[in-house]
């Protein structure tokens, strides 16, 4: 990768030099002009741009392919490590109300009403359990709390529904609600749609709530419009035929008793509302907070649950990254995880340490082999090279399982050691299900990645350099160490980077032979991807790992110099 090409190395008429000349000429006074009279600089820049565009067009297919299949998915996955809009989207009313909560004790009745409305909508959309699993990552027990609440929440407001209907049976009729809530324009559309012959062909027009209702009965209008939308989209029914949820009646009660202005409507509806508003003042009431705490689950009185909702109500969170470094975001602020749950820092350290160890053992084992290969006659070395490559053609799982057979306590290696008397039968070596197992198996698996770059670099080292050194009086060792070895360093560099970066991300081999002390951070990432479904945390762990690798690469470049890396 030595760069002797590059435009700067050329003298004479290259486009870049011409631009530079033109530039200099421009600075020293009169602008140099091209044949057509435009300044030479501009016309050159134009032709150069055309060339660059052509080059870009040539690599475009590959670039697009990489963007779409590699960079975009990774960026999307990493973005999950901060994304957290599920709370504010599922509980929009509650999040607003919680602003008033001081973090002490149980929130007030109004907050619980907002929660009731949010959870009713969420449970119809079947979002509440998803939110529950999200918050359960932060506070144990929230998952079943939300699941349980989703089952009971449709009882909320039943008492008001009954009283409204007792007052006037018209409240049971979907048509009453339509004339109260629907936008007149929508009603027209709907009638036109209903008059069609083939109703089934086109879908019912999406419900629109009337501005009058939004003005006069804001809570009811918001909830009813969600009700109507869900009826249309989820249940594929028509809001013109369904009685609203119980909680809509509760919202109506709240609107009517909370400063309702009767002037907005006219005719029958006004009379109906006025009558209802009058009666509602003496309705039997229901305390939503008590309903939640006493009927559904006493955990709703737990400030911890509310604190978690509040702490995670913003659309972006540092929570996953904090978890990834054994911290946690609590209602009281950022604090360390309990000591007995701290594992990630340990795993990061272990991953780094073991990858280093594997890299070093690959260098120690691979260097002599590569040296031998590059100094043998071509026929022999090709044959041996096939042996080096053989593991590449065998499945990773097969190789790892073979190590299991070899390394286990009743395995081949221990049997031989016992047989020749090196090890006592009752005291067999523990070579697997620990760090030793992972290091042995991974060194074997990654060894070709060290040997191949070393071999291709060593092949290019002219043998007469060493001979010259020896003829000038160097010993074998000096000739090797002072002359040969420095020339092979680019191969070590390339091999080390390959082996180290590959081993950092390994997870199948450590999973199979690593036991409890030989597993990597990637095993934990896999757990969060496939078992706990905590993709946010997996993404945070992945981002940290990626940042680590980039940092090491940068340090490597500063210390060794990336120009000193060669694949041959």
């Amino acid at each position, binding site marked *: 990768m030595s760069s002797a090409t590059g435009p700067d190395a050329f003298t004479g008429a290259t486009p870049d030099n011409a631009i530079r000349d033109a530039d200099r000429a421009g600075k020293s006074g009169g602008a140099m002009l091209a044949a057509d009279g435009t300044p030479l600089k501009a016309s050159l820049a134009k032709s150069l741009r055309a060339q660059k565009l052509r080059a870009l067009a040539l690599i475009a297919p590959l670039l697009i392919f990489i963007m779409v299949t590699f960079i975009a998915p990774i960026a999307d996955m990493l973005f999950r490590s901060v994304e957290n809009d599920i709370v504010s989207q599922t509980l929009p009313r509650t999040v607003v109300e919680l602003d008033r909560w001081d973090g002490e004790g149980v929130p007030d009745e109004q907050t619980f009403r907002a929660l009731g409305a949010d959870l009713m909508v969420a449970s119809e959309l079947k979002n509440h*359990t998803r939110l529950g699993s999200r918050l359960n990552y932060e506070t144990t027990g929230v998952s*079943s709390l939300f699941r349980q609440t989703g089952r009971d929440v449709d009882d909320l407001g039943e008492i008001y529904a009954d009283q409204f209907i007792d007052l006037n049976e018209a409240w049971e009729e979907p048509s009453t609600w339509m004339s109260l809530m629907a936008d007149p324009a929508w009603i027209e559309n709907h009638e036109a749609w209903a008059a069609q012959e083939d109703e089934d062909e086109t879908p019912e027009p999406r419900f629109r709530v009337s501005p009058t209702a939004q003005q006069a009965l804001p809570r009811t209008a918001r909830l009813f419009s969600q009700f109507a939308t869900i009826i249309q989209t989820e249940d594929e029914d028509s809001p013109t035929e369904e009685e609203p949820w119980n909680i809509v009646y509760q919202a109506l009660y709240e609107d009517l008793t909370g400063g309702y202005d009767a002037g907005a409507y006219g005719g029958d509806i006004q009379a109906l509302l006025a009558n209802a508003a009058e009666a509602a003042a003496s309705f039997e009431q229901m305390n939503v907070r008590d309903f939640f705490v006493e009927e559904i689950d006493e955990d709703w009185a737990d400030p911890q649950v509310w604190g978690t909702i509040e702490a995670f109500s913003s659309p972006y969170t540092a929570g996953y990254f904090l978890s990834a470094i054994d911290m946690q975001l609590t209602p009281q602020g950022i604090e360390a995880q309990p000591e007995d*749950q701290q594992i990630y820092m*340990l795993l990061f350290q272990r991953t780094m340490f073991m990858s280093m160890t594997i890299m070093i053992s690959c260098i120690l084992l691979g260097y002599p082999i590569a040296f031998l290969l590059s100094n043998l006659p071509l026929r022999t070395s090709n044959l041996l090279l096939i042996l080096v490559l053989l593991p590449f053609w065998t499945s990773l799982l097969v190789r790892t399982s073979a190590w299991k057979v070899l390394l286990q306590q009743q395995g081949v290696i221990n049997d031989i050691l016992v047989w020749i008397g090196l090890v006592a039968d009752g005291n067999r070596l523990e070579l697997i299900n620990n760090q030793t197992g992972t290091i042995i198996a991974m060194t074997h698996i990654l060894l070709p990645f060290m040997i191949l770059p070393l071999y291709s670099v060593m092949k290019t080292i002219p043998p007469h350099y060493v001979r010259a050194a020896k003829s000038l009086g160097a010993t074998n060792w000096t000739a090797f160490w002072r002359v040969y070895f420095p020339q092979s360093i680019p191969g070590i560099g390339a091999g080390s980077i390959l082996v180290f970066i590959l081993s950092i991300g390994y997870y199948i081999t450590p999973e199979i032979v690593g036991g409890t002390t030989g597993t990597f951070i990637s095993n934990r990432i896999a757990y969060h991807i496939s078992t706990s479904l*905590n993709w946010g945390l997996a993404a945070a762990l992945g981002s940290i790992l990626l940042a680590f690798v980039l940092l090491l690469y940068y340090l490597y470049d500063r210390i060794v110099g990336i120009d000193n890396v060669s694949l041959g």
Partner: protein
Amino acid sequence: MKLKSTLLTSAALCIATGAFAEQHAEMTESPVAGEPMSDEMTIVSWGGAYQESQLKAYVEPYLEMNPDVNITWDESSAEAVAQLRAMNEANNLTWDLVDVTAADAMRLCDEGIAMEVDIDEIAAPAPDGTPASEDFGEDMLVADCFIPQIAYSYTFGYRTDVDEWNGETPSEICDIFDTETFPGQRALERRPHNNLEWALICDGVAMDDVYDVLETDEGVDRALAKLDEIKDDTVWWTSGADTPQLLADGEVVFGSTYNGRLFSLIEEQDQPVEMMWDAQSYDLDGWIIPAGLEDEQLNRVKDFLWFATDTQRLADQAKYISYGPARASSAPMVGEHAELGIDMAPHMPTNPENATNAFVQNYEWWADYRDDLDARFQAWLSQ
């Protein structure tokens, strides 16, 4: 412990009526018969002996009745939850029917990825007319999306040729912790499930109180302290095939795994290993339908499920693998192993003799505590 008692009564019934009577129940037509159906269906299962049992017991018979249908298998059940979630997010569903454990079904249901079903519309009534919901029973129907198939259990196998044991054989769960009488390596699963329960039971907690105790920090400490006693003597497994291999190689003398794996180790591979059924932990496996299938696709799945989960088919499955059918009405029809010709009833985890001291995993509890306990458990393992 209602699951246990339902299973027990049905199993007892099977002995009373003679287990071998192969009744061919009248098949009822599925409710979607006659409606347009897709001829392609992708079924996701676990591969191996279990998938083979599904193939023999109901997929092949179904294909005989519907020769136009083409079924594709995908052996991805182990990663089904993550894959379904990815498909759901990408809005590109390629699976039609997925075999998962009850705990996964619950998670998929919570995430809105699996379709909620009314079991009486999906599964045929028992031959005597009992609706499916009663035939399966409440304890089997752990999630609104879950269509149960089999009950299996986590239980222990031990080698019968250990000289150091001086002729003693382990008979109860706490022998796992007794390294004096039963020296040697043990194999336990590398996750908290079951291990914590067993540890507490052997620390003197009554089976019914286990989850209440585990809910407290002290309870978890207690369980881990109990496990500390054997930590140095334990190999931790991650895949169901590990324990049978470790037992066969003599790497461990004791090991927990799925009872079906031990059955094949003992009966099919004839290894010197015995079952220890004490304190076996029941788990369930069944189908879920991914949410968002096209109508024609869904009709095909419903038509298949109506057949595949009926009483006779579930009983047939037990001929190929030693897992208990999820329907009470299937238990009396469990017969002999299809190839070995041995009576399968004594090998069922639900057999009364095996089930004297069994417990059912509390899925809802684990759904809440899984992540915390897993972190603690892994941290404990790393120490």
